[in-house]
């Protein structure tokens, strides 16, 4: 791998990890705001944020070492896995959007399922689904 590609990969990696840290940090004010109303949820958010930042930094250091040794950040297999995982995430998220939209109007759970809650649940499902599908296709492989 050429020096140019190495630099490009390290910059791309730094941007991805930087974005992940910025997104994680935006949850701190929300966690602080929620902790008075729902102590468990608030504490969970405040514990999860430093954990996510720590994992991101470890990921960055490990990947940077690999790239520096001449291995690429992405190849045809990892691109295929990411493509498959994102498309499956999209379809499952669409399903959950429809399902929660239906629940908002459903009288039995009308008080619980507000638009804000539905949005938070869909966002959480999307992130979780992406990780699950990435892990699944990494282990199982992408079908031919």
């Amino acid at each position, binding site marked *: 791998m050429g020096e140019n590609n190495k630099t490009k990969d390290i910059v791309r990696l730094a941007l991805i990890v930087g974005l992940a840290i910025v997104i994680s940090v935006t949850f701190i004010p929300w966690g602080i705001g929620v902790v008075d109303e729902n102590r468990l949820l608030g504490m969970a958010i405040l514990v999860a944020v430093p954990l996510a930042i720590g994992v991101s930094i470890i990921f960055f250091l490990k990947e940077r070492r690999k790239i520096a*040794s*001449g*291995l*690429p950040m992405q*190849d*045809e*297999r*990892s691109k295929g896995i990411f493509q498959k995982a994102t498309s499956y995430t999209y379809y499952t998220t669409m399903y959950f959007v429809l399902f929660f939209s239906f629940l908002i109007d459903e009288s039995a759970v009308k008080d619980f399922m507000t638009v804000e809650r539905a949005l938070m649940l869909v966002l959480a499902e999307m992130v979780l689904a992406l990780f699950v599908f990435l892990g699944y296709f990494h282990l199982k*492989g992408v079908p031919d």
Partner: protein
Amino acid sequence: MRTRLKEFRARYDLTQEDLARKVGVRRETIVYLEAGKYMPSLRLAHDVAKALKASIEELFLFEED
């Protein structure tokens, strides 16, 4: 699909990481290729064959139906 990557790699005393670096892929891709769990593109099969000084037919074996 079966592969003889491990055998050819040993012939040239290459580790999986060395081969990955030579063909420009991640080490995991070589692991899955060796296990016959990943069907490479023609380009990757060509690059691997070139790196191991073998032909594609020698490296990748397909069972007859």
